[in-house]
């Protein structure tokens, strides 16, 4: 199934990637080709086949809930593009009342 322009734009919004006009066009063509190949699996009879999210099953890995080593605040903030008062700074989310 070829993917249309509206689907490209919808997915780009979900993925939080601001695509240029040229990228939107290329993405539509390339994703269509890749998905056409991937659709080969539509031909397989998969009734009754369980999905495998993992190759090697390990379930319920537990550890004691104890305080261990962790990064200091300065270390955690050292790579942040913007810091304010010892916190990560982001554009305003909530408008003033």
């Amino acid at each position, binding site marked *: 199934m070829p*993917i249309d322009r509206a*689907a*490209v734009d*919808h*997915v*780009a919004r*979900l*993925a*939080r*990637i*601001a*695509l*240029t006009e040229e*990228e939107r066009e290329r*993405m539509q063509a*390339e*994703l269509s*080709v*890749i*998905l056409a*190949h*991937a*659709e*080969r*699996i*539509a031909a*397989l009879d*998969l009734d009754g*086949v*369980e*999905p*495998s*999210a*993992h*190759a*090697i099953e*390990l379930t319920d*890995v537990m*550890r004691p809930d104890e305080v261990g080593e962790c*990064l200091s605040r300065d*270390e*955690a903030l*050292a*790579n*942040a*593009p*913007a810091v304010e008062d010892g916190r*990560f700074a*982001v*554009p*305003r*989310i909530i408008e003033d009342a």
Partner: protein
Amino acid sequence: MTELHWLGATELASALDAGEVSAQEVAGALLQRADEVDPSVRAVLTRTDERLLEDARAADRRRAAGALRSPYDGVPVGYKDIFVTRGTVTTAGSRILEGYVPPYDATVVQRCSAAGLPLAHKLNMDEFAMGSSTENSAFMATRNPWDLERVPGGSSGGSAAAVAAGIVPWAWGTDTGGSIRQPASLVGIVGVKPTYGVVSRYGMIAFASSLDQAGPLTRNVRDAAALLEIAGGHDPRDATSIPGPAPRLLDGIDAGIEGLRVGIVAEFMQAEGLAHGVRARVEDAYRRLEKLGAELGEVHLPISLEHGISAYYLIAPAEASANLARYDGVRYGLRVDGEDVVAMTSRTRAAGFGAEVKRRVMLGTYSLSAGYYDAYYGRALRVRTLIKQEFARAFEHVDVIASPTSPTTAFRLGERTADPLAMYLSDLFTVAAPLAGLPAISVPCGLSPDDSLPVGLQLIAPALQESTMLRTAYAFEQDLGFAASPEGRPPL
């Protein structure tokens, strides 16, 4: 004596033990080699000369004091730039992490340092390990040491090229769909993808978490076994790490393969696109295994061949789209300002991600989105079950499965960049093992008669049977003699 830069890790360890060289001399020789060849090979993303020399000095002091940390103390190791290194820039080949200085070491790095291995450079890679040629690095394309107009494979192309060119004796890479084995094959060295969970993923920048696995790229099979012993084994910091100590892989590696049952994948040998020269060398390899006492038979993996690429290129991008959500311009990496959070994040990711990463994040987001989940991601997970089952059936009859690693030898730079699907088909024979979580190795089997470029033999074993796989590869390698001879080195 062979020049120091051509020695493998075990040979260097012996030379250090015999007092023939010091760790500082080894480090110095490797740095000189990097000066000579890396301007043309371009395997190294961040050179760590100072750190390497400092670590080597410390190794020499330990040796003088009789306080060695391991038999490999003083033998330098390189890292794909996907392993975080405390205090040393780590980018995963991406602009979005340009200049990122991690506050901690990956478990692999920690364990190698604890064994006394000096840190030798951060090596180039396809951005976030997405690619099969290392051309998707945001910073530069690495060249194949055998022919500088050709790619070294990917995504661990920098690690593979650095080992093949004599810049480091061994290096760490990561494999999600073939990213260790395919470059190892294309540059004529050994590459191992262990069973999922044998090597900790802690501090390995995530691409597709259910598939990603770290492994060694080395000049010979023994070195690969040794590096896995150093860094493998359970890590409480990785919940998917298999409980138990590091595997013992060197014991019995030279026991031979008399009576071992080797299954040749019938469908892979009939695959369209298998190059004539690759087929010729791999068929020679099968005959050699038989000569060494193995019993050859056929196994069938039709789903892996027909549907492996489809399943892989739905599952891996889906996981990647979730993993890469963390690059939002807030906690680390690039930020491009915007009027609100959504605009800031969307512009940051537009500027920071390269074309292939955008393509895969889009593909993954699409296949997970409402209305398409069942048709794409859900079905791909079921195909994964079928692939696991067909491997299980094959291993009822054989101990090890053999095939070519890559359908072709190294291709030319630019040859497949315009066609993403053609690039994806480079992984035709390698995607099945990670989907099933199985260990696999690529071991050189000589040069193609068509173009005189290296060809790799892939061996796949049941989960946690690395020792059988390595014993097979070792017997083959010793009998072939390619790795140890000057013929096994690129003309560089």
